[in-house]
């Protein structure tokens, strides 16, 4: 029908470009059309009272509009409109027919047949032969990659993984010397050889297809929606943590058919249940994310199992669980605390940190003018000469706390060292309130005032030994530092009910980019209490009080608020402080594909990138896997070492990366990570057809998405492509039946209206 009215098939109009074949300029067409319609309007207006005095105003203007449209259309035809479109040259081009052979294609949801059978049936019942009348055809099978095959006969959906992105990119790159005119992809759109929760089109794939101007036509198979199912989509959680820390995991899931019902999300470590929470399902098809909090427990690499309890009538129970690897390490990280006077805050911070097995507080306290009392030392010589003056001595600490100490206690060299500690080394510095802190300690006019997250007030009377109550800000309500209770609402209330601080200090206004997590009520005013900011590679914070110790002494015995807050604050301070060796992996969950990229950032004692290190990864895996792999220095990033490795067996892997200095042959440091390969699991997820992905893929590449039952136009539509060997054809539009119909309709309608209104 479309072709009958418009003379040409729809791709001519979708892919073509509208042009005028006449040599006359287009502006002349616009000018003439405007002139004629204006002249007609003037004539109509002049003659209205004499020719048709009884005709109502709007009716005459309707007739004028129809006459104007008629004349404009005639003028348009004089300029010879046409569509130019690129089309493949017959018999000189190849159409790549790509058939998804992943296991999800074996699902029987296509009129009782498997998706694979339905796809092969379409190909064999005329589609291939129709294409072959005009083009050559090459067949490819698609799993985790793409492979050329002789024909579709006997194909079985056995590939454990699908990666359409990788397959199409490989196809585009491998066939650069072939005149591929278009790609015809038969698939359910499921991609599972990538991180769970990611299913979009990869940019590099699109780039490869765009470079070849290859349109991808897709035919989608499979049900669009499961009637009754709950599916875990993703678990977002830190890949490593420290012992006994509170872990927050964001669990994303989607369901159909159970809206408003409740279920239980549980996280297990082997037989042990770490946390459980009842949730209520959102409307069907909407992605829902809920948080689970649990303790990391003891040190070690483990696989946590996140499960949504199965519901009755659920069609697929295999997508209710996800295993997520996590590495819990027991490395003690050392924090340097400099305090200028004995005070209670120092005592109670020390006590809180003594209960944190992951932190070692090394402190230097000025007890008298000439005495420093040191605690938490690794050897008697540590800090014997006071605050460090060399980068290698200071940079070994993961964090620094500066208490009630005047800024001029630190020499200019030491102040610069503190600045570099944050900026270059990436460490964290926490400034506490006190009578020799912040403004009162001269920090506002010091050379490192830029480190502070607030503009300190001028003057030296900012510290007050007066009570102040505390409350969280919006940012604080979401921060892990201030989470005393897992439930956000109860946490806010808990903070409001905390006993008052023994003292407070004015901090001035926060700098742009700084975050106020908690504030103090000091009567008529509210002042920032806890302010954080990023600076260079590190971070700084102000806690504008020396009186949180009352949270320990005046809350009930056993109340964990004080210690928990301090442990969380110090952990935040040091969490992102890099070690000399920082290991990372391209992915922590490999789905059916073992390829992984291991990386390590290696720094010397002054935290400069180390370019002459020997870096080795020791990999322990399932079934006795025990490999040593050398990492090569990156050409792009100094201090970065990488290696690609293939985890051939499914299971959990533990990697320890060790760096040795090339000159001194001393070990620079080591770091560990864990990852997991899972086979035949991903195919249980996203089992419905991913039509959105297929449609987007086609739309982005200039192809079209086809329903399996309407594919007869594919051989014709597929020929409109700029890839391969193509020619651009010009298609005049003046003789389209539509034009004739329009002209006729305008004249007829005018005549009929005139007759009806009595002005013939």
């Amino acid at each position, binding site marked *: 029908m479309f072709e009958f009215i418009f003379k040409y098939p729809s791709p001519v109009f979708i892919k073509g470009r509208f042009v005028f074949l006449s040599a006359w300029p287009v502006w002349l067409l616009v000018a003439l059309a405007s002139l004629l319609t204006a002249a007609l309007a003037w004539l109509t207006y002049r003659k209205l009272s004499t020719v048709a005095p009884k005709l109502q105003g709007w009716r005459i203007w309707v007739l004028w509009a129809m006459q104007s449209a008629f004349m404009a259309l005639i003028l348009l035809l004089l300029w010879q409109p046409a569509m130019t479109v690129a089309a493949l040259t017959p018999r000189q081009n190849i159409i790549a027919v790509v058939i998804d052979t992943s296991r999800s294609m074996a699902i029987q949801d296509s009129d009782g047949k498997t998706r694979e059978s339905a796809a092969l049936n379409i190909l064999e019942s005329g589609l291939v032969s129709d294409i072959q009348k005009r083009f050559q055809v090459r067949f490819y099978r698609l799993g985790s990659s793409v492979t050329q095959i002789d024909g579709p006969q006997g194909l079985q959906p056995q590939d454990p993984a699908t990666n359409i992105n990788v397959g199409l990119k490989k196809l585009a790159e491998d066939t650069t010397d072939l005149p591929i005119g278009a790609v015809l992809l038969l698939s359910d759109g499921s991609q599972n050889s990538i991180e769970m929760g990611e299913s979009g089109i990869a940019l590099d794939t699109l780039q490869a297809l765009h470079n070849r101007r290859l349109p991808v036509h897709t035919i989608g198979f499979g049900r669009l929606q499961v009637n009754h199912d709950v599916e875990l989509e993703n678990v977002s959680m830190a890949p490593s943590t420290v012992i006994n820390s509170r872990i927050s995991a964001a669990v994303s899931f989607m369901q159909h058919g159970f809206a408003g019902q409740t279920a239980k999300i549980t996280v297990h470590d082997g037989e042990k249940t770490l946390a459980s929470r009842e949730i209520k399902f959102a409307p069907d098809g909407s992605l829902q994310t809920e948080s689970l909090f649990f303790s990391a427990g003891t040190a070690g690499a483990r696989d946590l199992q996140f499960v949504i309890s199965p519901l009755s009538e659920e069609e697929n129970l295999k997508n209710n669980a996800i295993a997520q690897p996590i590495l819990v390490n027991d490395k003690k990280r050392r924090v340097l605390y400099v305090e200028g006077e*004995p*005070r209670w805050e120092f005592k109670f911070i020390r006590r809180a940190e003594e209960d944190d097995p992951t932190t070692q507080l090394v402190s230097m306290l000025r007890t008298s003018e000439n005495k420093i009392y040191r605690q938490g030392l690794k050897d008697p010589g540590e800090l014997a000469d006071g605050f460090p003056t060399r980068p290698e001595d200071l940079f070994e600490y993961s964090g620094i706390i500066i208490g009630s100490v005047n800024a001029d206690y630190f020499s200019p060299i030491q102040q610069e060292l503190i600045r570099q500690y944050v900026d270059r080394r990436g460490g964290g510095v926490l400034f506490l309130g006190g009578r020799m802190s912040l403004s009162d300690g001269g920090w506002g006019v010091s050379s490192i005032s830029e480190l502070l997250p607030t503009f300190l007030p001028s003057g030296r009377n900012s510290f007050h030994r007066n009570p102040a109550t505390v409350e969280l800000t919006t940012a604080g309500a979401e921060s892990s530092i201030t989470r005393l209770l897992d439930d956000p609402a109860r946490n806010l209330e808990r903070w409001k009910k905390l006993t008052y601080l023994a003292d407070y200090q004015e901090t001035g206004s926060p700098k742009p980019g700084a975050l106020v997590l908690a504030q103090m009520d000091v009567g008529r005013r509210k002042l920032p209490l806890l302010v954080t900011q990023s600076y260079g590679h590190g971070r700084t914070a102000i806690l504008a009080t020396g009186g949180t110790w009352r949270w320990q002494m005046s809350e009930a015995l056993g109340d964990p608020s004080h210690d928990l807050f301090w442990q969380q604050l110090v952990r935040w301070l040091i969490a992102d402080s890099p070690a000399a060796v920082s290991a990372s992996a391209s992915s922590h969950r490999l789905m059916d594909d073992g390829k992984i990229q291991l990386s390590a950032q290696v720094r010397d004692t002054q935290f400069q990138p180390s370019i002459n290190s020997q870096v080795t990864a020791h990999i322990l895996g399932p079934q006795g896997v025990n490999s040593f792999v050398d990492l090569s220095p990156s050409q792009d990033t100094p201090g970065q070492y990488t290696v690609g490795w293939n985890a051939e067996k499914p299971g959990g892997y533990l990697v320890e990366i060790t760096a040795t200095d090339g000159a001194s042959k001393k070990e620079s440091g080591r770091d560990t990570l864990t990852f997991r390969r899972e086979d035949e699991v991903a195919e249980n997820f996203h089992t419905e057809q991913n039509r959105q992905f297929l449609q987007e893929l086609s739309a982005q590449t200039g192809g079209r998405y086809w329903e399996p039952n309407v594919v007869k136009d594919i051989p014709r539509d597929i020929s409109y492509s700029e890839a391969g060997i193509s020619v651009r054809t010009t298609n005049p539009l003046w003789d389209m039946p539509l034009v004739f119909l329009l002209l006729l309709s305008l004249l007829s309608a005018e005549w009929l209206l005139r007759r009806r209104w009595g002005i013939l």
Partner: protein
Amino acid sequence: MKLSRIATASVIAAVGCAGLRAYQRVGDFGFGNDDSPSNIKAEFYWSRLAFSSNLQGLSSFGDYGYWRRNAWSRDYPKADRQFLIAMHRLTRIDGRPTEQVVNLDSDEIFNYPWIYAVQVQMWSFTDKEAKRLREYLLKGGFLMVDDFHGTEDWENFMNGMRQVLPDYPIEDLQNGDEIFHTLYDVDDKMQIPGEHWVRTRRTYEKDGYQPKWRAIRDSKGRIVVAICHNMHLGDAWEWADDPDYPEVFASMAFRVGLDYIIYDMTH
């Protein structure tokens, strides 16, 4: 008319509730809220524990008008103030120059993580007081006891201590213990006598011939009660300016006291 009364009553009730809520947040402001010129605020308050006596049977311990008759007030306040003078000269502690008397009647004691008690052979606690002192010590408070002598005093002291911390053993402190090395290295300790030494030249009282440097630790091994038995550091502080009282005793008493305070403020 009736409606207007209801409305008036509602407004009064609402204002009352709002006021009560506001009071609940700030009503317990006690510590640090006195801004009068006579009140000097500081980080450290020398806090002397006032307690009821098990022997004297005089007026209630809260009746400070009779403080001279009460056991807890021995050497008060001169010893306290002389010690504070020394503390100001020898440390960077921001301490108030005058003492603070605390008792176990209220939770105010939790604002003072250091308390000093003398004549503890005479103390006695109600269950509520014992519970409050136990919680104080387990939360992080520190108690130094002084000026009790001999076997009988020890037993009386222990009667109260068992009420407070029944499951915590008492140990003898060694020279190498950290509490004797926080500000000064106090290795060669001696028996520190009270003012009676000036008249009697005896360093002991009753049958307390040997000084006992003892302590109770919490579950993490931190000293929470420092016990100076068979000695009288308070007198040494009080009579440090008496030309007849030996400097060596006074110096030792100051050094020990400062070590204890620094230990408390760092552990």
